[in-house]
């Protein structure tokens, strides 16, 4: 029916006709779209965290087996004697250091020719040679035992591989082939007889070794300088202490039992407190995070020592002292520095900064600085300087925000009481914003600890705990870091191997470390914020 009053379809902006598809209006669909994206984001972020742990936690089981094999195959037994041998090596190093000092004294202080110096050191050399050779029988024993223990370990590992192979064949339903896989069971008790049977030989060798050391010591030539003589006495003392440890070694060898169980927690403690990160070695792999953790902390510490005064100082300057014109120019510039890609900074470190610092350290006028001169161009200091440049913008921006949040009344009241500008800054503004500044420093630390490319390229990548006896000079030694080791070794490891999982566990440690830093930073800001009003 045609109505004369038909109303034309209205063209309102707000149009409430509800078209429903599958019972959903357009609005619902939009909501579901947004909600779906939110769910996907949250779920994937959770999933990724889950996968980190899934890959990582397998490590502890594998490491436990790794440690168990170490004991059962007798590697631990051999390492007792090996430790004894390496103790001797350390002592000979002391001796060669002594020789170098004497040699330097002769050639540099007394201006003798090198031939003459060597001539006068002949008796010392004879002594050193005698001392060094004393270890030969022990060394021979160690190398024999090493071969035998390695053989047992290899046999055991092959047997394990065969077992896995049989399992896989069985799982594939090929029972006939599975039965054909020959598995040699390794009877550790009998295999290890070869090792433990050498105990009487060891006792004899060890006694003779002690005697030889003693004889060698009596032949030690007298040192001309009192300082060197004192060192030689110290050396005698060290040798006596060293010899005194022999009975303990014998004791551990006697009481050693391959069947003693490895407690489950040892795979955790071996990781957390292990002082060695040694992979792809022919003997035994160790996964201890301590050297990497210390490396990361040392590099971050150096970075913070440089970055905190500069970052906080410039924040104070910009916020409290600088003119508007300076502010407008400096703030974006420092933000711009934060955009430098870390790999470019790392390249700069390799190409320029490392060389420059080494050149600087070799200037005679700077020889008084601890650790100068150094020869390693890539070390903690180089990496720390570059990381400081990364941390400064973070610290600067956040600290500046914190200073900005200090109520103006505080400052005005301080001025009204007659305080000078510096007094106001140091006694009023900075304390009032201290929580913000501390959290800025913490977030800077988080940024630095997680930085990868700079430390990978510039920290020197030597996996060892730096020698803290060197005092401040420790910053001129190369280290390896947690982030660096992941980036360096992840590309080369076999998926699913213990090494691969160990790297994931390092990632988990980093994950928790950064979470903790973030958490503490937020906590500090909330807890100690000055109420504004």
């Amino acid at each position, binding site marked *: 029916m045609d109505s004369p009053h038909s109303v034309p379809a209205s063209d309102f*902006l*707000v149009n*409430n006709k509800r078209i429903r598809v599958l019972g959903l209006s357009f609005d619902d669909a939009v*909501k579901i*779209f*947004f*909600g779906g*994206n*939110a769910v996907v*984001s*949250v779920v*994937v*972020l959770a*999933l*990724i965290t889950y996968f980190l742990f899934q*890959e990582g936690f397998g490590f502890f089981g594998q490491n436990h087996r790794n440690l168990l094999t170490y004991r059962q195959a007798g590697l631990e037994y051999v390492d007792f004697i090996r430790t004894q041998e390496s103790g001797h090596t350390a002592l000979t190093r002391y001796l060669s250091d002594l020789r170098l000092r004497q040699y330097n004294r002769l050639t540099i202080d007394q201006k003798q020719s090198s031939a003459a110096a060597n001539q006068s050191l002949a008796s010392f050399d004879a002594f050193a040679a005698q001392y060094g050779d004393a270890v030969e029988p022990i060394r021979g024993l160690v190398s024999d035992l090493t071969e035998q223990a390695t053989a047992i370990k290899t046999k055991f590992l092959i047997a394990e591989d065969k077992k896995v192979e049989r399992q896989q064949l069985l799982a594939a339903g090929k029972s006939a082939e599975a039965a054909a896989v020959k598995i040699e069971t390794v009877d550790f008790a009998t295999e290890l007889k070869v090792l433990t049977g050498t105990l009487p030989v060891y006792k004899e060798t060890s006694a003779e070794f002690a005697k030889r050391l003693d004889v060698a010591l009596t032949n030690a030539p007298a040192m001309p300088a009192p300082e060197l003589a004192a060192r030689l006495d110290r050396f005698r003392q060290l040798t006596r202490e060293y010899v005194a440890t022999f009975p303990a070694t014998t004791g551990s060898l006697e009481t050693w039992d391959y069947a003693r169980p490895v407690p489950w927690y040892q795979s955790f403690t071996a990781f957390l407190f292990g002082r060695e990160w040694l992979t792809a070695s022919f003997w035994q792999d160790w996964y201890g995070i301590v050297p990497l953790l210390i490396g990361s902390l040392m590099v971050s510490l150096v970075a913070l020592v440089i970055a905190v005064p*500069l970052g906080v*100082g*410039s924040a104070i*300057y*910009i916020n409290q*002292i*600088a003119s508007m014109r300076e502010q407008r120019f*400096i703030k*974006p*510039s*420092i933000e*711009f*520095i934060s*955009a*430098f*890609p*870390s*790999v*470019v*900074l*790392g*390249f*700069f470190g*390799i*190409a*320029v900064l490392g060389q420059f610092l080494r050149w600087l350290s070799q200037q005679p006028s700077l020889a008084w600085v601890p650790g100068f001169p150094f020869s390693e161009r890539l070390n903690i200091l180089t990496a720390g300087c570059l990381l400081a*440049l990364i941390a400064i913008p973070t610290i*600067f921006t956040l600290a500046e925000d914190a200073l900005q949040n200090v109520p103006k009344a505080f400052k005005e009241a301080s001025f009204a009481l007659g305080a000078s500008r*510096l007094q106001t800054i140091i006694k009023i503004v900075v304390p009032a914003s201290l929580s913000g500044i501390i959290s800025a420093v913490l977030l800077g630390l988080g940024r630095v*600890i*997680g930085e*990868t*490319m700079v430390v990978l*390229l510039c920290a020197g990548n030597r996996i060892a705990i730096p020698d803290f006896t060197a005092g401040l000079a420790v910053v001129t030694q190369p280290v390896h870091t947690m982030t660096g080791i*992941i*980036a360096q070794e*992840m*590309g080369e490891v076999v998926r699913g191997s213990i090494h691969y999982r160990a790297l994931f566990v390092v*990632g988990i440690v980093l*994950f928790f470390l*950064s*979470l903790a*830093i*973030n958490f503490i930073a937020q906590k500090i800001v909330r807890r100690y914020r000055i109420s504004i009003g």
Partner: protein
Amino acid sequence: MSAPTRHVFRSRPSAARRWETGALWVFRSSTYLVLLCGALVFGHIVFKGSHTVFTKQAPFINVPFLTEAPESLYVFEYKGEKKELGDRAFRAFKIEHPEAKDVKAESYVYSAGGIFPCIVGTVLLVVGSMIIALTLGVSAAVYLNEYAVQGRVVTAIRLAILNLAGVPSVVFGLFGLGLFVIYLDWNVSLLAGWFTLAFMVLPVVITASEESLKAVPKGFREGSLALGATKWQTIRKNVLPYALPGILTSSILGIARVAGETAPIMFTAAYVVRDKLPWQGLTSVSDFFFQGVMALPYHIYVVSSKIPQNEYTERVQYGTAFVFLMIVALIATTSIVLRNNLRNRYKW
């Protein structure tokens, strides 16, 4: 002669005053020291890199460097002349001069040719990951801020996201390796790289977008709803337009971060070297997504750590660093300038 007259209000020089001036100068010099260091690094790379990227003759830009693939460089002496030739040119030279067949040449990998595949790879990685990150991130922020019932769960999610923003990028690389490369079996591919990078910046994008959404006054929404608009109409007409500039600037900052990161793509997307460009030799569309690419940051890592430092390798090292730094700096500058303009524009 009498002492120079002082103005009555001029303060007397005193120890305290000298102290203050000294301290202020310490602050000032620390600020300028930071700027100086930044300028030195930037200037050094720009100065050395511009020798590679720019030329003195006509086009003034080193076109081959920007359009060719990396090659090995051969350095040799021929008839008393020192020659430096790239891989292909060296082979052609040998064919042309048969007597030079046994000439002894020192070779340096990646030191000749250009970096075109790396530029292409980086652009692909950045564009793809930013599309994913922006879609997911902005939608998630809109949902969390506009639709979700504000309660404990949302607060917890927000806190978790905020904390994830501080997780090191190399850990995100491990995440990506575990989930995308291994579990989903995408291998080292463009797709795995996109998702890894996207989820790396996702916390940043969500947090920043929420911040800009929150900055839109509540009255805008209430007014629109009171006029009878639906929720979506309100968001589309009255919230997003005002929040968008803020979202965009923060996402540009995200782009700078994505482009600058090396660690996450090291084991998810980047190849050390690949002859084919991403669009060459594809048999099906999906091949495009499941191929690894070369990327500028990874290339810089490779050329600065795997080959020696000398006059021949310097060219490509500084050239690559320069191009990369310029790209990232351009993105960052855009975002900084945009943000400074925006601050002045929207104020309520």
